[in-house]
């Protein structure tokens, strides 16, 4: 497998081509912006919450294949999850991509990002939306 095939794992390519819930929600209950000022990537994440549980999540904006796929996977995994569990999932993903995870990986899809253990230049792309939603969770759970 070439480095490019590793970096752009089939799962990443799929999510990039058909991202989950990739649409604007004008009247969303809440929205946050994941923005990388270095590269210009910018996603808005639209959040519906009920009793501290992510009811539905949508996202929209502009980003590379890595940032788009990782956002798409994040949405799929966090929907329906209570805040406290979601926080753990976010931390698990971020630790996994930074190769500092010392617990089992939460979901096999995370392994699609294993190339980032070597190709660290794209870590920010993968972490973009996850860091933003983690900030949101930490704020809400204060």
């Amino acid at each position, binding site marked *: 497998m070439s480095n490019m095939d590793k*970096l752009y794992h089939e799962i990443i390519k799929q999510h990039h081509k058909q991202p989950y819930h990739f649409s604007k929600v004008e009247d969303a209950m809440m929205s946050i912006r994941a923005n990388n000022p270095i*590269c*210009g*990537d910018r996603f808005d994440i639209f959040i519906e919450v009920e009793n501290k549980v992510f009811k539905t999540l949508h996202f929209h904006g*502009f*980003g590379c294949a890595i940032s788009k796929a990782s956002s798409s996977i994040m949405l799929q995994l966090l929907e329906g999850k209570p805040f406290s569990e979601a926080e753990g999932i976010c931390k698990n993903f971020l630790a996994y991509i930074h190769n500092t995870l010392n617990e089992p990986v939460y979901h096999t899809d995370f392994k699609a990002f294993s190339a980032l253990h070597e190709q660290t230049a*794209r870590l920010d792309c993968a972490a973009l939306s996850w860091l933003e939603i983690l900030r949101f969770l930490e704020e809400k759970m204060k």
Partner: protein
Amino acid sequence: MPFDPTTIKKQFPIFERFPDLVYLDNAATTQKPRSVIKAISDFYTYENANIHRGVYNLSAQVTQKYEAVRQQLSEFFEGDSPNCFSFCSGATEGINWVVKGYLENILQEGDNVVISAMEHHANLIPWQQLCIKNRAKLQVIPLNEKGEIDLQQFSTLLTQRTKIVALTHVSNTLGTINPIAEIVELAHQKAIPVLIDGAQSVGHFPINLYDLAIDFLVFSGHKIFGPTGIGVLYCKEKYHDQIKATKFGGGSIKEVSFNETSWKNYPHSMEAGTPHIAGVIGLGKALGFINEFDLTEAFSHEQKLAILLKENLKSIGGIELLGNPTHFSGIASFIVENIHPHDVASFLAEQEIAVRAGHHCTQPLLASMGVPATVRVSFSVYNIEEDVVKLVEVLKELKKFWL
């Protein structure tokens, strides 16, 4: 010596370490020739001392060497006296010096500053922030479809209340070369000073400061084969008394008491603290390196590579070039249909091709063109046709990969 990129390339040790490296990110920073690296290493190894301080030989010699670079700059630009050149950390700091040391003292509520829509953030934010603070207006010259400044629109923006025009010589994103002579003439007709951001022009083609009559010019050493952390502010003699120090400390003063301080004249007034001596020495060597070849020929080589690139990109299909300026440098930006610039750059990086992907610190420009980011290719003297050929081949592979 006739211009030969292959011979020139041999002077850059990075290409010995990475023989297959195709370095096309020269607008971000250039590679360094052996002579510059050696000059910096020699300084620290054999010549190190502080300047303007000691009476011992080492200090006197390094002071002489440091000051000699001002002389070199004066010759390089066929310009004013060596004392018109002050050393700053780079183009960004140079602009900030003019904003805070000159304009801030005279900019009144209701005045305006004129910049263009293609400015790098460094030649936008400092003026914008001062305008906000002093309640002045930031006027932006719009661009035409080709990515060029509209001179007619420009002249209508100049008023009695315009206190400065700040403009890039060459767009770091589109490669457009701006008509500086005409712009300076129009501004001077209304007695408005002009600052030129030379970050992408200096060292690429000859600039005659007498002919162009520029009032302020800034550039960075690391973009012209010199070290990082060193840059130059050229300030016309007329403004020497009007530009004030923006950082205070040793080395820039005439006399100090507990109640007051008097400053040395420009340029020394600006250079408080121990300056980047090794940087200045490296910059001097970089100027010497550029003087070894015919700069006009070198620039025509960069332009030829840009033409070759643009023609080839058009032939691939599904690639859109940003802007189409009549006068252009060796810089071109493009987007590949349905593939994000970062994904393009990663794919190219895998084949040892270094390009820039992102907004190139010109977010408002890209926003006005409706794109969040681009891939940018920028040439220098050591790039060869084979670099373009390899880039184009890999772009074709990229399109297959993402099919």
